[in-house]
């Protein structure tokens, strides 16, 4: 009976309900796009770190896990390696460089990442071969950059860094392409660790007394090792370092947490607006139907029948609106330029859709309460 009433009402007032479904569809599109934008921006910022085959990251002490501020000397790396429970470690250095594009075009900025061949920090190779030495003028390039520059394995690229306030140009041979490995919104160019130390942007290159440094050390633990214990052990064994897990390391990436919390807040507010809009619409509808509800109750409809009719109507309209919004989102996503950082992550999309489906009944709670509180005596113009 309840479903019969709600479906009939929707069908006989389909234009009004369709218009309202469009509002829900709009909210759905907005929520899904914010979620996709959050994921896209997060990925562009953290993709490399999140893909590193390591559980822990060692930073210089008191730098708030900032990779760019951290400096780990080679001697310290050796001390870290001696800690029991470690399978392998790899020094990782970060920097920036521009790949020069012939023909006077705007150069392509990349993250210049120094890694140790065969150690944690190496990207997955999709074409060509990985880096094999600690020093060579060669590199592995992110497939995104390779596609953009239309490069083949074996091609040479020229990169520009700044050393002692002067532009320096280096030619590297591309030995392989990695899967997508963005870091700080740039595709990555992986080069051998010692090469990186030589060609990266720095204020005092080639100082003879300067010790080889990296920014962080990626630690892969042996299987079954208690990571918290291992982190504490490293901090006890090695002075002036701090150890973070992957989550902490990602959250410490400049701007990452602020950006994600901003977008999450936007998403929550959009959902909240959805609750209010849906609640408001069905509340107005219900206020218009109060006399009818009174009659229905007077002739023998139970409170549960009336409540179920309201809830099922809200669920049907919300579901239809969310489905419509999802289709609109798919359509719009297909037309968005590839440069826009939007990624539809299955888990986040499902979470967002479930949240959107939940806001309907949530917004309709007040309406259900009103429907249940209508007295059958109202049908006779009386009240108790």
């Amino acid at each position: 009976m309840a479903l019969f009433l709600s479906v009939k009402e929707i069908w006989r007032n389909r234009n009004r309900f369709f218009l309202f479904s469009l509002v829900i569809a709009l909210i759905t599109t907005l929520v899904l796009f914010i979620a996709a934008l959050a994921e896209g921006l997060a990925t562009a910022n953290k993709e490399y770190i999140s893909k590193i085959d390591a559980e822990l990251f060692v930073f210089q002490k008191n730098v708030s896990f900032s990779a760019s501020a951290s400096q780990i000397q080679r001697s310290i790396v050796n001390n870290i390696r001696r800690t029991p429970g470690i399978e392998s470690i790899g020094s990782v250095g970060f920097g920036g460089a521009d790949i020069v594009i012939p023909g006077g075009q705007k150069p392509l900025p990349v993250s210049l990442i120094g890694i140790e061949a065969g150690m944690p920090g190496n990207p997955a190779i999709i074409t060509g071969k990985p880096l094999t030495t600690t020093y060579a003028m060669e590199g592995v390039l992110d497939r995104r950059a390779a596609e953009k520059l239309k490069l083949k394995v074996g091609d040479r690229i020229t990169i520009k860094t700044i050393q002692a306030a002067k532009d320096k140009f280096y030619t590297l041979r591309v030995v392989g392409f990695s899967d997508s490995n963005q870091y700080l919104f740039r595709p990555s160019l992986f080069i051998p660790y010692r090469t990186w130390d030589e060609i990266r942007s720095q204020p005092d290159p080639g100082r003879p007394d300067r010790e080889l440094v990296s920014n962080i050390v990626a630690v892969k633990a042996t299987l079954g090792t208690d990571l918290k214990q291992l982190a504490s052990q490293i901090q006890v064994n090695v002075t002036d370092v701090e150890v973070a897990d992957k989550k902490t390391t990602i959250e410490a990436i400049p701007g990452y947490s602020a950006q994600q919390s901003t977008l999450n807040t936007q998403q929550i507010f959009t959902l909240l607006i959805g609750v209010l809009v849906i609640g408001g619409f069905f509340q107005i509808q219900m206020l218009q139907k109060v006399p009818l509800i009174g009659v229905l109750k007077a002739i023998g409809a139970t409170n549960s029948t009336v409540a179920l009719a309201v809830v099922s109507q809200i669920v049907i309209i919300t579901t239809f609106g969310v489905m419509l919004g999802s289709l609109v989102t798919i359509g719009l996503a297909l037309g968005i330029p590839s440069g826009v950082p939007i990624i539809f992550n299955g888990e986040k999309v499902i979470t967002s859709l479930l949240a959107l489906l939940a806001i309907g009944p949530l917004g309709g709670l007040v309406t259900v309460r009103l429907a249940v509180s209508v007295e059958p005596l109202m049908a006779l113009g009386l009240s108790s």
Partner: protein
Amino acid sequence: MEPVIQANSVSTVYQSGSLSVKAVDQISFDVKPGEFVALVGPSGSGKTTMLAMLAALLSPTEGDVLIDGVDLSGFKDNERVKFRREKIGFTFQANNLVPYLNIQENVEMMLRLNNKLDNAGKERANELITRLGLENRKRNLPNQLSGGEKQRVAIARSLVHNPSVVLADEPTANLDSERAYQVVKIFSDLIHEQDKAGIIVTHDLRMCIYVDKVVQMRDGKIENILANRKEIDNFIACG
């Protein structure tokens, strides 16, 4: 013949702040099967409150109401709802019909509520629709019907589930004289044909030509009960 409706010394008191208002005061009457009774009286005389008690919508403060020999005073809320659904047919002054259901669906509503929308139920609904001259309006929505047609649909709905009691609260209030007579005559005919106990609350004394008994109320009390044709006709003539 045993009465279907029995009201025994029924009283109801409304509490308005610290003030107690006796809306119905020691009312007793009964209605037999096939008997059509009019509750008449000026506004505030307590006739609608009396109707609400007969419909199990309101509990009397004193006295008891028996329908088919069952005392309604012992009922819990959910039992009252079930009782109304099964035993009572209702026609109201306004907002009678569900605006988004067509005429057939509106008439069948009581069958749906009672889970009796089987072939026999559908047949009974169709018979009533035809009997009330609405067979060409079955697929129409209420907003496509005249006031008189809407009340006829409400009458069909009030009878379709074969209740013991049929109650009508001012069903002619929004109708012109011609349609009002038409509606009450149909109502009266069906109550007599189907042996229901029927009560109509009305201001319009002219409608009493179709009833078998007139219960005249004033200030919550029965002023007079007119039970023969001559008395009723005189009452109508005196207006």
